[in-house]
Every structure is written in structure tokens, then in C-alpha cells.
């Protein structure tokens, strides 16, 4: 038996989707580079193509999946000397990917993180300096656990969790790939 009222119900989501589009980008990659490494005088593209073996090694050590084969990385240099790595990464948010950048020092410490694009319903506090500051100085010796060394933001737990695990994964990527270059 045909269910004709379905036709009317179908009209509603179609109209909703057709009428809505959004994108919230807070910083571009160059702006984030300047924010994390204001002392750098040049950023050299050092994009990484990861082999399957490298991805497996990262996943094993970080405890989280290395989703991307290609990772956008720049060498931050001052007077020709490496002062850190700048990495743009994406992690799963509730609806869309969250784009963020992390600056890592050559000895494997987080110099800072910046949120480039965040489009979720709740949790805009992750952009605050107070929350991002919790990552500064972290190394792979730290726990990277919500409510332990990184505060959770209610309504955005998945986002906080994935960024926290993401930053740890980038430190592992540095150790497994960048430091061996």
C-alpha cells in the first residue's frame, strides 16, 4: 500500500537542506603560522606523504587512527635554523571535520594550537586561549586525557576528545617521521 503522506514529510528535510549552508573559518594557515611562530622568518612546505608502515606506526604509538596519508607540514625557520614544525590537521567533529593547527618544537613539545575551522553546535570555548593554553608544553610523556590534563567542554566532548588525541598523534608523527628526515 503506498504511503502518500511520506511525500509531504520528505518535502521538509529537502527544503531545510536547500535553505541552509554555513562555514566558519577563523584563521587561515598563514595566520595560524604567525600566531604560533611569530619569531619565524620563513615557513617551508614540508608536506608529508605517509607510507602504510608509517601510518601503522603512528596509530600504534598514538592509540588513534592516522586517517590522512598526506599531512600538511611546514618547517618554521629563523635565520635558516629550524625552530619548529607547523602542522595543519583535521579531526572528526560531530557534524564536520574540525580543522586545527599545531606548532611543535624540535624537541617534541607543543608550542601552541590554533583552531582554524569549527562548525559544531556547542563548544566554541575550544577557541579560547584558556583552553588552547592547556596544550602548551605538552610532550608524549603527558596523559592527553580529558578531565585529567585537558579540560572537557560540555556539549563538545567528542570535539575536545578528538582534538586532544589529534595533538598527541601529531607529536607521534613528529617522532616517527619528521625527526628522521
Amino acid at each position, binding site marked *: 500500500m503506498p504511503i502518500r503522506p511520506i511525500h509531504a514529510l520528505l518535502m521538509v528535510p529537502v527544503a531545510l537542506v536547500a535553505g541552509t549552508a554555513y562555514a566558519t573559518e577563523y584563521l587561515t594557515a598563514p595566520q595560524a603560522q604567525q600566531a604560533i611562530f611569530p619569531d619565524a622568518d620563513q615557513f617551508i612546505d614540508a608536506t608529508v606523504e605517509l607510507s602504510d608502515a608509517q601510518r601503522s606506526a603512528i596509530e600504534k604509538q598514538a592509540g588513534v587512527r592516522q586517517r590522512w596519508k598526506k599531512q600538511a607540514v611546514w618547517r618554521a625557520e629563523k635565520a635558516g635554523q629550524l625552530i619548529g614544525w607547523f602542522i595543519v590537521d583535521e579531526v572528526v567533529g560531530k557534524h564536520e571535520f574540525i580543522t586545527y593547527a599545531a606548532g611543535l618544537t624540535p624537541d617534541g613539545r607543543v608550542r601552541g594550537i590554533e583552531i582554524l575551522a569549527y562548525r559544531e553546535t556547542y563548544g566554541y570555548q575550544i577557541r579560547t586561549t584558556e583552553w588552547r593554553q592547556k596544550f602548551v608544553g605538552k610532550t608524549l610523556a603527558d596523559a592527553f586525557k580529558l578531565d585529567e590534563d585537558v579540560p572537557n567542554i*560540555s556539549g563538545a566532548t567528542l570535539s575536545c576528545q578528538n582534538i586532544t588525541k589529534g595533538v598527541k598523534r601529531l607529536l607521534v608523527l613528529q617522532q616517527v617521521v619528521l625527526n628522521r628526515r
Partner: protein
Amino acid sequence: MKNKIKVGAAVLGALMLSATSFADEGLFGYVRLAEPLPKGAMDFEQWFTVRSDKGEGQYTALDTKTEIEWGVTDRFTTSVELYGLGINTSGLMIDAYLPKDASYVWKPAGLEVATKYNFLSPAKDWIGLSQYVAFSYFWEDVHSGQRKDVYSVEGLLLAQKYFMDGQLVLAGNLGVEATSATRKPIDGLPPDFEWPTTPEMEIEVTASAGITYRFAENWFIGGEIFYQTEHETVVGQERWSVQAGPTLHYGAKKWWATLTWLPQIRGGGLMYPGQTDTDLHLIEKTKQEIRLRIGYNF
């Protein structure tokens, strides 16, 4: 009458679109998630459920639910819901269940207050776990469209698990509902037609599960399975049914919509005289069910 229900659904949908606001995100049509709203957050949700086809005669019903939900704390959420009913039934009379033809576009049918308490977070803990408790009063019988006082208390355990960083979501619910129901007298029924007006007690057990995958940004696709059985004072096990089907979800920053088709695939218990689909329960349930949920987050 079908057209009236169709128009009613479209008008309510349009009203939703014209409202500038409002609900706790439902990735599924029927399975509830364990995640609570954050403290101070509020959302609005509108359901439209079309139930149709009892195998004989004409039967189409539109259930609506309008809900406002508020995050009291980061773990405790409370909500108020108004239910509505539109129905068109003719050509099928069942003792104690369908006394006569009924046809109206929409009436308010019941009220519910509910709470949700979150014990474990699906994003932080191994599994997310919440308890859901609801108290409701219905003055319309959602099966027959006739007057009936129905008082219910429902308790559900809600479990939720993230996989692939949250790209794949698995959820399950287990619940019990206790109901006291009293039919209102109806004048002019045939003398041999049964329409008891003494109070009945019913116990309903529900188990459901769903899995959904984010296949593109903002879009989830998945499936749900929903088992329900009801026992009551007069007949013992009155019915059981299994419904299963696909679900499609779109979630944006401020609003979301979920469309679920959940036909009955197996069922049993009481059957009406002459029922030909003997592997389904078609007295209180129907062959087809489709639900659209729309939510808006403040």
C-alpha cells in the same frame, strides 16, 4: 482524508521552517542517544510519524510530538512534550480496539514530562550510559482515535558507543513502561461489540538498537531495529512486533533532521478475525511506519 493528513504534515513542517528556533540531536528516528544537553542549553524538536496499513480496511494515522528540552546540569536534562494525533480509519472494526470509523486531521492527544541523567559519556568513557524516565497522560487513544485516559511511566536505559572517532555510532535502548488505561464509553455501538470501560493495566517492554555512519560531512546513514511487546491484565501477552529499516540524518550547526522508515517485519500476539498477514501484529501496530524528526538547538 489521506490528503488532509498530508496537508496537515506539510503545514506543520512549514510552521517549523518559519520558526526561527529549536532539540537534542537525534541521529535515529526511534533509538535514543545517551548524550545529554550541556547546562543551560535548550532545544526544540518536532516529530511526525505516519502509521499506515492494517491489511484490511483503511488506516492512516499521523502522530506528532512537540518537545522542548533543557539542560539543567551537564548531566541532567529535562523535557516537556505535547503529543498530537490525526487519523483516518474506516472499514475495519475490532472488538476492544477499533470501535468505529474515525477521521480528523489533528487533535492534541497527550502530554509528557521526561528526564535524562547521564552516567557515562560516550566520548570520554568506554561506553555512554544514561537513564531516561518519562511520565505521560494521554486523553486520546493513538490506535483508535477514540477517547481513552492513559497514564504511563516509562524507564529506559540508553547506551551509546562511538567508533572511528565518532564517524560510526552504535546505540541501544532497553525499557519498560507501565500503563493504566480506561476507555471512555461510546454511544451507538452494536450490542455485541466489546468496548470495556474498566481500567486495564499494561506492561510494555522495548528493546531497540541502531547503527549509523557519517558518509559525508553532515550526513549519516544507518539502520534501526525496534522490538516491542505488551502484556496486559485481560489477555496476557497482547502483542509483540519487530520493526526494522533505514534511517537518514542531516545535522548542521543549529538544526538537524532525521527520516526513518520502520516497517513491521515480524509480529504476533492477538490477531483480528480474518487477518491474512498472520506473521504480523496489526491490531495496535501497522505494516508501515515512517518518522521525520526535526530539531533546532538554541
